[in-house]
């Protein structure tokens, strides 16, 4: 934060209601904006770097040897090596990564299959009391997962579905469905009603209307929804830890076991954390704008 004084800028009175009477307001404003600009830019960069630093540190540590990773003071310039990744690979991470991929992708597809028709019924041709239905969906998110954990665990032990990836897929679908319905509803609500009217007067059938009018408007929303469902499923730990074991264990579960079973190897741990975060990081960076749209749910305009 010491960078606040960089460049010896004048006191930041520019942004605070000034008490002095300006000779020309516009002139003063122009000057104050010029003066404050580099300062705010530097501050923005400092904040950005501070936030990304732990992530960079994780990646850098993963590329150091175990001895260089655990030094004090930190050895930033130590030689880079892939040893961390090699030992991570030798811990057989492929099965858990595949389980995670399967659980995330299939549950996301299922969510979309269920959420898109539901959102259609809630926005394009709204059923009566559609807001009540929307509230019901949202209210299921008020119920923390952990509150249903025990019955789900008992159910899984009784039915022999413990350590079965399909149970996780069903649960992840239910976990993400309410949010997906919410997001899709608000995206579909963007479809201009007049266009639908016009198309229906021109004699377009439902399928044609969906394809040529709704689909183009809804596609970014579908992408944003899919991305967020994928992220939440990929990240989930509590259900996976409780309901899976050796066969269906997901990447987050693997990561927790990684530390306890082998003692702590920092470079190796950072390599594992990096690899497991990579799909989400890549997807999230690639679709930043979609992510923003999805998170604000398009609902608030």
């Amino acid at each position, binding site marked *: 934060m010491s960078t606040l004084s960089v460049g010896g800028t004048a006191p930041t009175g520019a942004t605070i209601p000034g008490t002095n009477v300006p000779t020309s307001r516009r002139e003063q404003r122009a000057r104050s904006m010029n003066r404050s600009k580099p300062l705010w830019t530097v501050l923005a960069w400092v*904040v950005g770097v501070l936030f990304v630093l732990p992530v960079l*540190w994780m990646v850098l540590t993963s590329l150091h040897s175990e001895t260089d990773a*655990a030094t004090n003071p930190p050895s930033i310039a130590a030689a880079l090596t892939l040893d961390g990744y090699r030992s991570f690979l030798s811990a057989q991470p492929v099965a858990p990564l595949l389980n995670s991929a399967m659980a995330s992708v299939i549950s996301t597809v299922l969510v979309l299959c269920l959420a898109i028709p539901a959102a259609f019924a809630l926005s394009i041709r709204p059923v009566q009391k559609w807001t009540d239905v929307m509230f019901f969906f949202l209210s299921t998110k008020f119920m923390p997962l952990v509150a*249903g954990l025990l019955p789900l665990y008992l159910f899984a032990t009784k039915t022999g579905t413990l350590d079965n990836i399909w149970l996780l897929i*069903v649960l992840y679908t239910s976990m993400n469905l309410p949010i997906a319905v919410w997001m899709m509803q608000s995206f579909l609500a963007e479809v201009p009603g007049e266009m639908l009217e016009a198309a229906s007067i021109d004699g377009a059938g439902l399928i044609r209307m969906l394809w040529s009018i709704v689909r183009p408007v809804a596609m970014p929303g579908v992408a944003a929804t899919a991305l967020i469902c994928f992220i939440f499923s990929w990240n989930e*730990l509590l259900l996976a830890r409780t309901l899976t074991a050796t066969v269906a264990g997901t990447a987050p579960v693997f990561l927790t076991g990684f530390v306890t079973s082998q003692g702590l190897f920092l470079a190796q741990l950072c390599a594992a954390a990096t690899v497991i975060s990579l799909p989400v990081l890549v997807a999230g*960076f690639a679709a930043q704008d979609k992510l923003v749209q999805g998170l604000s749910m398009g*609902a608030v305009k």
Partner: protein
Amino acid sequence: MSASTAPSHPRVGPDRPQGSAGSARRAADWARRAPLLPALLFTIVVTQLPFVATIVISFMNWNSYYPQDRGFGGVDNYVSVFTNAQLRQAVVNTVVLTVTVVLVSLVLGMLIALLLDRKFAGRGAVRTMMIAPFLVVPIAAALLWKHALFNPNYGLFNGTINAVWKLFGSDSAPQVDWLSTAPKIAIEVSLIWQWTPFMMLILLAGLQSKPADAEEAARMDGATSFQIFRYLTFPHLRQYLELGGLLGAIYIVQNFDAVFTITAGGLGTANLPYTIYQTVFSAHDYGLASAMGVVVVIATIIIATFALRVVSSMFKQEVGR
């Protein structure tokens, strides 16, 4: 399409032949509802049934170590939740953790969103850097904070302090054991780091949807930046702030990963989700765990109801549709 917005009461109009029109209308209604039903049924079965079971079990004495003692226990479990000092502590911890993390990350997120709302060199790069914490898998983030940052011997924090001290020729840098000195703050800091970008993204979307002309007009009239923020930007951001608060609260109340990893519930940091997990899988007290689960749900509903009034105001803009 136009007929669709009219409320459809079956059997309207005395001059209509009742049977056929009514059934046609009813068929149309079902056609309208049909796409909704799979999602609705699925959600009810998978999310509501387990919770009903949780409520039932919460009124039972049921510890799987003592299967012969299973039976109706009345409100015993609930009494335990609020009288057992350890459990009460878990309730308090959950509230403190949620409120602290949500508030701090909302405020930080708003300040950073305001910073990033301006045009400057490398704005896209800074935004990308800001988003990174939100995209790191939570359990990986928790492990990262615990082992690579907070670790007293080789963590980045103590390492940096040490390096700075060495720079000035001192070998006696203070080395703090962060996790035992301030365990709650350590968990909160790691969560704030993950959630600030989330809040920032929502608020940035809000800022960017703000109509520019009002601000321009206010500037012309000589309003200061602070006044513009106070009377234009902030009111506009309000519903975004509340949406962020609502979503943040829903997810942070449930936090398990950070507490489980960073302190394993030790040092007085156990929150309800962690305690429930322990009660089910270590103590095997199913009744007590279920009562805690019900308490968490009620607490979440209370928090959410406050925020929901806002969400419903968001709805009003669209209801006319």
